[in-house]
């Protein structure tokens, strides 16, 4: 268990180092995710202990958003000032994205 927690942190650390050294415009943990993904492909499976650690972290994924989300209270003024562009962009963009993605995927999927 401790080994796989450490492994996740090592992947994150390696991702951080790679992203900075290569000047990649990608957050370190995302590079860490790619590193772990490649590792799993090479290994050809997910060790059951890693599975347990991953499930424990990801089953409470939404809890981890809360502290940052509470930070909205320092932006209340900004949101109040720009409520129209923000809400219009959120709603319209989300609906258009679903339509475009589904349409492209269905159109390509239909080909033999």
């Amino acid at each position, binding site marked *: 268990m401790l080994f796989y927690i450490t492994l996740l942190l090592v992947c994150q650390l390696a991702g951080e180092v790679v992203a900075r050294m290569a000047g990649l415009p990608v957050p370190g943990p995302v590079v860490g995710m790619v590193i772990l993904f490649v590792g799993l492909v090479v290994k050809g499976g997910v060790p059951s202990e890693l599975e347990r650690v991953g499930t424990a972290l*990801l089953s409470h994924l939404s809890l981890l958003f809360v502290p940052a989300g509470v930070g*909205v209270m320092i932006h209340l003024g900004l949101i109040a000032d720009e409520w129209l562009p923000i809400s219009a962009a959120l709603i319209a963009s989300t609906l258009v994205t679903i339509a475009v993605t589904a349409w492209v995927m269905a159109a390509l999927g239909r080909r033999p």
Partner: protein
Amino acid sequence: MTEDLQSIWVYLAATPLLGLTATLVAYQLAQALWRRLGMNPLANPVLLSILVLAGFLTVTGTEYRTYFDGAQFVHFLLGPATVALAIPLYRQIAALRRSALAVLVALVAGSATAAVSAVGIAWALGASHGTLMSLAPKSVTTPIAMGVAEQIGGLPSLTAVLVILTGITGAVAGTWVLGLIRVRDPQAQGFAIGVASHGIGTARALQLGEVAGAFSGLAMGLNGVATAILVPLLVGWVFRP
């Protein structure tokens, strides 16, 4: 008596214990309420927790920075959790290989549409630069979105809230849009919801069926990577000073 309480409060308010405990308590209360309401997407536990905690801090006059001293222990876990997203992504590798071309084209189209349409609409309606940069990564899972926002000069905490609202929008209205454009293929349905509205949308796609759920999870992981690469490049290209 009240003076005793006052001095206890002054002591507690200055330790990380209070912010951390309040976060865990608020989240579990919100989750219980969400289950009570039949897991209604509008009663999203993250949204409820944020409202409860922001209300609590406002009423007690506690500064966000003081709260975050405690809550940062939870916040830190976002990094390892992002790395752990490689596990569900790996499980979809067979499905990914089978529809690789459709997946790749739909991913790039969807990822670019999400960022460009959000920034374009907000820009046309006069949003500030900080808001635009906070909106750009709104369609991907929070840890990635916040990292991207930080990188391109947005406000990570504003992005966190925009991401959650995007997820709720996709979960509530996604099936309505799919019906409107008459896409019935569950792979395409799930993938579209996952690209546009990450984990909160994926929870909704799982209710549509196993295939839609799996493709939504796949889309959420892939769009996390695609957005982390595409958005900073697009921003550098469009907003180059």
